[in-house]
């Protein structure tokens, strides 16, 4: 065989092999596009995220007994807009959301935040081969994304007025605190449990409680050191209360004195008049003196947090039974 013929034969074989590859090989497996009618569908590929979301209060926005009681089992249909919203991307970032008719029991679900009007999924990567066709949409992490519901109570406005909204090293947006990276590693994605007012550790990190003797009396200070919005934020539902009591100098094991109410942090709901808005803005401090003879000696001061502002007996509130302890302080002369 002549060398020329051998080369020509190899060329023909090579071309045939290329042709066969071009015809039969698929460069990359492309999953069939899915369309989404329930957040449960997301679980198939995103089990961890789904499990986190399922644990979140967003997932319970429709089923939480407290919400159902406050909304009279959603007979107050005004609540549905935010507790079972249509996708944020449908109405637009920063626009108010609208209520949906189907699968309300899923609350504020995957679809509400991630489905785009064209059926694709808003995410952090572009992947045209994945079944949900994710496309990168940075708006997902913008505070304006949370605003349609959470700014109805002014929370995003409060953040904008805070130092956390200032560009620079101290900048922190909603997701920085409420959807931090898993295990602190940004490569592992964001925690979808979306911690907030139900997470006592997060609440504790928001405020500091201090006290000092000034002019012959105790003065208690509460500073909003960690929340990028008011403490507490939201109207009506959330409240924080300062209590104090004298530390008995009596016998060992004697019952402690009853708590005395000192100050309340709360924004009144729209029906409530004559109640001052006492939420503590980000970075601000409130100073409250303790007056009276009983406060002349050692006292104990405590800050309690309540998801529902009402006391069973408003005249004699029992914070240890009805509220969560945030910080406790002993002040001794």
């Amino acid at each position, binding site marked *: 065989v002549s060398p020329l013929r051998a080369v020509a034969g190899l060329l023909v074989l090579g071309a045939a092999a290329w042709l066969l590859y071009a015809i039969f090989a698929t460069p990359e497996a492309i999953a069939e596009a*899915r*369309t*989404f*009618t329930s957040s449960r569908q997301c679980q198939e590929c995103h089990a961890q995220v789904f499990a986190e979301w399922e644990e979140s209060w967003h997932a319970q926005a429709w089923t939480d007994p407290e919400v159902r009681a406050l909304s009279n089992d959603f007979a107050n*249909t*005004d609540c549905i*807009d*935010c507790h079972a919203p*249509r*996708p944020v*991307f*449908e*109405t637009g970032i920063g*626009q*108010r959301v*609208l*209520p*949906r*008719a*189907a*699968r309300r029991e899923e609350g504020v679900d995957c*679809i509400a935040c991630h*489905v*785009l*009007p064209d*059926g694709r999924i808003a995410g952090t990567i572009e992947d045209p081969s994945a079944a949900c066709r994710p496309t990168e949409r940075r708006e997902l992490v913008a505070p304006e994304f949370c605003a349609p519901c959470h700014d*109805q109570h002014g929370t995003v406005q409060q953040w904008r007025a805070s130092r956390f909204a200032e560009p620079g090293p101290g900048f922190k947006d909603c997701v920085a605190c409420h959807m931090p990276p898993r295990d602190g590693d940004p490569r592992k994605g964001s925690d979808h449990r979306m911690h907030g007012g139900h997470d006592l550790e997060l609440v504790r990190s928001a405020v500091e409680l201090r006290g000092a003797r000034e002019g012959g009396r105790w003065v208690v200070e509460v500073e909003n050191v960690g929340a990028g919005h008011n403490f507490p934020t939201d109207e009506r539902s959330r409240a924080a209360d300062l209590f104090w009591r004298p530390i008995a100098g009596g016998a060992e094991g004697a019952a402690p004195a009853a708590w005395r109410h000192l100050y309340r942090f709360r924004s009144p709901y*729209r*029906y409530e*008049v*004559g109640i001052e808005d006492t939420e503590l803005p980000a970075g601000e401090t409130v100073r409250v003196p303790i007056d009276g003879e009983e406060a002349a000696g050692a006292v104990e001061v405590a800050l309690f947090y309540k998801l529902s502002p009402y006391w069973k007996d408003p005249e004699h509130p029992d914070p240890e039974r009805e509220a969560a302890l945030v910080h406790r302080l002993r002040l001794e002369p």
Partner: protein
Amino acid sequence: VRVARLTLALAVAGCGGEAEHAAPATGAIPYEVRPVVAPAIAELERELGREDLAEAPASAELRERVDGLLETVSESRDRLRLAALEELAGLGDAAVPLLAVKLSDVAADAALRRVAAEVLGAIDTPASARALLTRLERARTDVDPEAWMRATCAWQLGLTTQDWAVPRMILCLKYETDHETALWLAESLARFGNFAGLEGAAVVETSGATPEVRARAAELRARLAREHGFAGPAELARAWAEGDPEAKLPPDEPSPRHRLELWRTIASLSEWQLRGVDDARFVLPRERESAARMLGESLRDENRYVRVHAAQCLERMGPRGRPAIPALIEALDDPASGPTAAAALAALGAREAIPTLSACLAPSRSLDLRVAAARALSDLGLPTDTDLLER
């Protein structure tokens, strides 16, 4: 049977595979949407002219005259009182600012302040009614221990011809905590042919603060029923809810100013803050059939929030909203308001919508619409042939 029907309907609506995704509401609307609310407001404002002319400061002479006449009315009886009252009312809008101040002047004599409210009622102009409304609405924003003054203002408003005050009086029903004032609101609203206050009156009758106020609520409900030819309060309430099928209630003829107020309330459905939207969603369903027609027109507005919330208002209005049925049937094709329109049709008892609602079960329609249509069909009572839903 009802639960089984609903379960079947929801199951059928939930089927259909994944032929469509969950966010179809941005699709095209097969009919024209256009500005509806804003032009209606502009037209009525043109027709009515400018409302808020700057008030000229009252002269010392006028102030003295008003004070003197108020005292005369307060201290006199019979013809002298009537003459002084007529003279005060004859001062018209010029006296309104001075009288409005009296309504809030806690240092002034209570009898004089009551007369000031009475004169504002007698003046019977938009400005005088606005002064009464402003005082009545105080409880929405402040602690107002003077419930008697709010009750007086509510009563006086009912004696005027200013029917445009009705939407604002309805909103007062939402926030008013004084039972006596709520009853006066109910009575005054009834004078304008609006019976939205009956619901609150029924609550006061059973759980009013005192035996006296409970008795007054019972008397009011019975009297209103009697005055309008009904056997009792329940029959009156039913006629009100159902849109007056026997035409026993006063005619539903809102003045241009009332229509302007209604359009403005509809416009507030597009606000960003839900607080104003919620107020509008409280007021509009408690209005009469003419408001239902306006809400029906609003289903064609270019603003999707107006369309969706207008449908919600009609749903809450119930059978009184029947004039809007054709518009609601058409709105089933609107991806934004369609599901809410389906719910509204059910609430209105619109059996004529069954064929269109049945077509909404098709797998090509959005999941939201299919579920809403299935629920609506169940609420309306399915046709005997369940093939429809199975399909």
